[in-house]
């Protein structure tokens, strides 16, 4: 699957050794189907300059693909800036991408939803599936705006009716996600929403669950991707669309 990195280096004046909260470099890219939105935003920290140079070099070599790309969408920078990084949560070494601060920024939250809605409306998508619990925050507003149903995909034993479930691997052990039987019909077209894709395990399980009942997953959509964890490789043929990418 083609990886398109759209980069227009933008060295922020906030770049300094004394950043109180680490910010990740944010490069937007998306995969699979021809992009209808060209989004790009960069902010670099000192420690990640090597990475960003490599990205810039890679982008330069793909100038011919870039030629038809639109200019950077200004909404993306604001969205990226509104996400807070919390070091060592839930355990040491993990830089947690906290979207609760995005939800406090009314413009950024509105823009996030608008970017997804613009991409998916009028595409005959009748199902927005959202993964518990942060997928419940982004999914329903998108579903309402594009005229689709919202289907919650939940941890075991939360859904009251008859369910089908799909197991997936964790670092240690396994977990399951569940969906109500009858929530979707064969042949429906769906998108799956979560706030973030890391290893891709949860989204891959969600894809399998929906495919088992005959639904076509048009795309997985997340606000944030952690590309180092190569989550998109777990999604098989299903394209991935993200707004910001955080290394």
């Amino acid at each position: 699957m083609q990886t398109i990195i759209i980069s227009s280096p933008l060295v922020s004046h906030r770049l300094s050794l004394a950043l109180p909260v680490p910010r990740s470099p944010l490069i937007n890219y998306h995969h699979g189907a021809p992009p209808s939105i060209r989004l790009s935003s960069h902010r670099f920290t000192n420690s990640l300059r090597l990475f960003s140079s490599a990205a810039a070099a890679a982008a330069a070599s793909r100038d011919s693909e870039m030629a038809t790309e639109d200019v950077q969408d200004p909404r993306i920078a604001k969205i990226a800036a509104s996400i807070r990084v919390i070091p060592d949560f839930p355990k040491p070494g993990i830089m947690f991408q906290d979207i609760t601060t995005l939800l406090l920024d009314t413009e950024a939250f509105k823009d996030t939803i608008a970017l997804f809605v613009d991409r998916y409306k009028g595409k005959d998508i009748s199902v927005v599936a959202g993964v518990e619990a942060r997928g419940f925050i982004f999914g329903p507003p998108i579903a309402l705006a594009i005229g689709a149903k919202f289907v919650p995909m939940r941890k075991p034993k939360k859904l009251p009716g008859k369910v089908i479930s799909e197991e997936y691997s964790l670092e240690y052990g396994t977990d399951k996600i569940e969906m109500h039987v009858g929530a979707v019909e064969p042949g429906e077209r769906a998108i799956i929403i979560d706030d973030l894709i890391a290893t891709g395990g949860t989204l891959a399980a969600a894809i399998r669950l929906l495919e088992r009942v005959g639904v076509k997953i048009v795309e997985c959509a997340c606000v944030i991707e952690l590309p180092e964890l190569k989550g998109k490789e777990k999604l098989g043929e299903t394209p991935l669309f993200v707004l910001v990418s955080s290394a």
Partner: protein
Amino acid sequence: MFASENGLKGDPRLEAISAAIRVVPDFPKKGIMFQDITTLLLDHKAFKHTIDIFVDRYRDMQISVVAGVEARGFLFGPSIALAIGAKFIPLRKPGKLPGKVISESYELEYGHDRLEMHVGTVEPRERVIIIDDLVATGGTLSAAISLLESQGAEVVECACVIGLPEVKGQHKLKGKPLYVLVEPSGVDEFC
């Protein structure tokens, strides 16, 4: 307290909302008639009516914060917040929020649980509504009210799609008004 007593008597949208809610008997345990809103979310028109009714009520009340109780409050709160230009604040089970939190415990039938909120998310005197899918005893909402008031916010109202009859006495909601769209559906409706 109920929308039908509060200017929406006879509004056909309320009937559509009520009809879209599925009752699942004996969940999570025998004797409980569980009010399942997932079927409401599958009915795009009824789901939209639900949000529209709340938005119409709150858009001119200078509400700057919508707080939603995990997890089903997350299904309704953000859409309302977006439509009225308010922030959305998730109130979560312990250990989920990554930053500095305050927490409040509340009673369950057996034992208790805790609700958490990030500090620094509301300013003193900000006007807040709290959203959940259903109110039964009011224990969770009371904990939510405590959290928000401890940060200096003014809780204007609690709003739920479904309200169980026992919540008519408002003392458990610390004197805050409660706005509810529908009463629980009976299982008869789904034969």
